[in-house]
């Protein structure tokens, strides 16, 4: 009888000890002094799978949705417990209103203009940047004669910095950008122009507009301007201009 009592008491004490002395197990939270991993499902697996001889797929088990704040649904944004994916599902859209910019008949002493709109749409909070460059200067259709890129009224503009260009006697080819997030050298200056970065001349493309915020159909208007010298050869002049829209990260 006494032995049964002792056994029973021992069991009771052991049970109480397990309740009060055993550490709490937080199955969904692992942490150290330097990191915290919060996942509901921590069955890890990774490695190289089988597949085509030219490429192989890896796989990850136990990915859970642990997205941050913001415009991500938990099904579309996840931090892989296999340490593979951080994924943002948003669409980044770029529109150009017109692809053929006709400057019309160029005459000495006349600044000819044409314009079109660039529109960016991104719901990501990373914003966007628009770069631009020209393939080459405005070039005669026979291939050799060019209309040089503008250096503006006071010979003080280039592909990185706009300046005033109102003098009809100054020949050249350039552009102005206007919109809510254009580069600072354009802000408030509709008569300031830059030359395009000349890809054929090894120049790198330049930023013309940039924003760190969500863009809902944000429009940047590009106004081209050209004029010719009195001795410019007659004929048609053409070039190609590229606009590159890059989302923020």
């Amino acid at each position: 009888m006494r032995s049964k009592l002792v056994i029973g008491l021992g069991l009771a004490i052991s049970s109480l000890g397990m309740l009060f002395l055993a550490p709490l197990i937080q199955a969904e939270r692992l942490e150290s002094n330097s990191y915290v991993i919060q996942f509901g499902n921590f069955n890890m697996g990774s490695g190289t799978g089988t597949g085509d001889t030219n490429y192989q797929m890896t796989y990850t088990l136990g990915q859970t949705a642990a997205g941050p704040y913001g415009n991500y649904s938990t099904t579309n944004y996840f931090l892989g417990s296999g340490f593979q994916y951080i994924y943002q599902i948003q669409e980044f859209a770029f529109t150009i209103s017109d692809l053929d910019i006709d400057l019309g008949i160029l005459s000495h002493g006349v600044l000819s203009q044409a314009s079109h709109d660039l529109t960016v749409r991104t719901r990501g909070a990373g914003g966007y940047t628009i770069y631009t460059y020209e393939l080459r200067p405005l070039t005669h259709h026979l291939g050799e004669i060019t209309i040089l890129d503008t250096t503006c009224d006071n010979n003080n503009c280039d592909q990185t910095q706009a300046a005033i260009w109102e003098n009809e006697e100054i020949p050249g080819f350039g552009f102005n950008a206007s919109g809510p997030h254009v580069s600072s050298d354009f802000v408030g200056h509709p008569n300031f122009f830059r030359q395009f970065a000349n890809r054929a001349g090894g120049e790198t493309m330049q930023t013309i507009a940039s924003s760190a915020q969500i863009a809902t159909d944000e429009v940047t208007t590009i106004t081209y301007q050209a004029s010719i010298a009195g001795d410019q050869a007659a004929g048609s002049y053409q070039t190609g201009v590229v606009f590159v829209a890059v989302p923020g990260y």
Partner: protein
Amino acid sequence: MNLTILNLHQLSKTSCPRLAKLPIFLATQPRDQQAKNQLKTFLKFPMTIASFLVIAVSLVTSVTHPASTAAQTTSPAAGLGLSKAPFSLAVSPPTTYLAVKPGAALTHTFTLRNYGQQALKITTQITDFTADGTTGKPILGDGSVFDKIINPDLNFGQEFIIEPGENRSLTLSFTISDQAITKEYPLTVLFHGEPIEKNGSSNRNLTAASGTVASNLIIFISDQSTRQGELIIDQIDYPRFIDSFGKINFKILARNLGPHALPITGQAAIKNLFQQSIIEYIFYPDYILGNSSRRVRNVELTAENIDSQGKIIEDHLDKLSDQFSYRSPFMIGPYQIEVQLENQTRQITVIALPFSGLALIFLGLLIFFGYKFLKQKFPS
């Protein structure tokens, strides 16, 4: 359309002996109008650096037609009908972070949508980018990632046509060298579209425009599966003294000491003399690339901005700002700004004094005594 030459040398700072060329073939298949069509393009290039990021990169494209599965519909997203513009190109996702171990492989799929009125010829290229240190703006490199001088047969990505209203899925496959070092590679994939039909005639002064949309791809190579590094508060720009009728403005620059991107997590608060929080802010989880910095963006921690799960309401993301600001009709004395970034907390003190009030009082006294002086001097 110019194809920018990519130079992998820029991805690694180590130089290693030239290794053997890897056999890669170029294969195309006839387009099948009734089913998914895949175009496989592989690269030929020698591995000149043992810690090369990539052994083989392939770009696989598939055409999506209206007859395909519902998940691959060509219908524009809700609210995004076909544009009237000749060029309207969209890519998703805009930014992706991929982590992979040396010797492993992974794939990533982009989706291109042509919302414009014209069919576009699409060419693809990859360039690297660097962080600007304050915002999430990628500073694109010069595009020299693959060295065509070493590999004159280089032809990354075969051009393809995307019709108006059409979707295209492009899958990028990476196989990582097992000797790759632990490093983060921020890349930008550029999809250039130009119209197939050029309307310009030879007797017009014409500028032909074309567009490129990009998607950022940040790849982190490491043999460790755990988080590495930490975020610290690098700098807080704040005024030591403010006017009692003014406002408290401050900015936080966070730095990532680790090798891979980390999200910003934390919050800030302004407390009065009695240690009561008078305003609280929550940080937006922007990513800071490895060994880089970024300004912290915030919204005010209110029920209006935060949903029941503690997340910033999507419609309120336009309130994001890298400037923390607080204004009160009147402030006096010390105010404590407490910034908590991950495990780090920093407290700074701003003192509000009625400078403008004192200035007005001084001006008033000046006028008063000046008047008295003049009255004494000129009694008449």
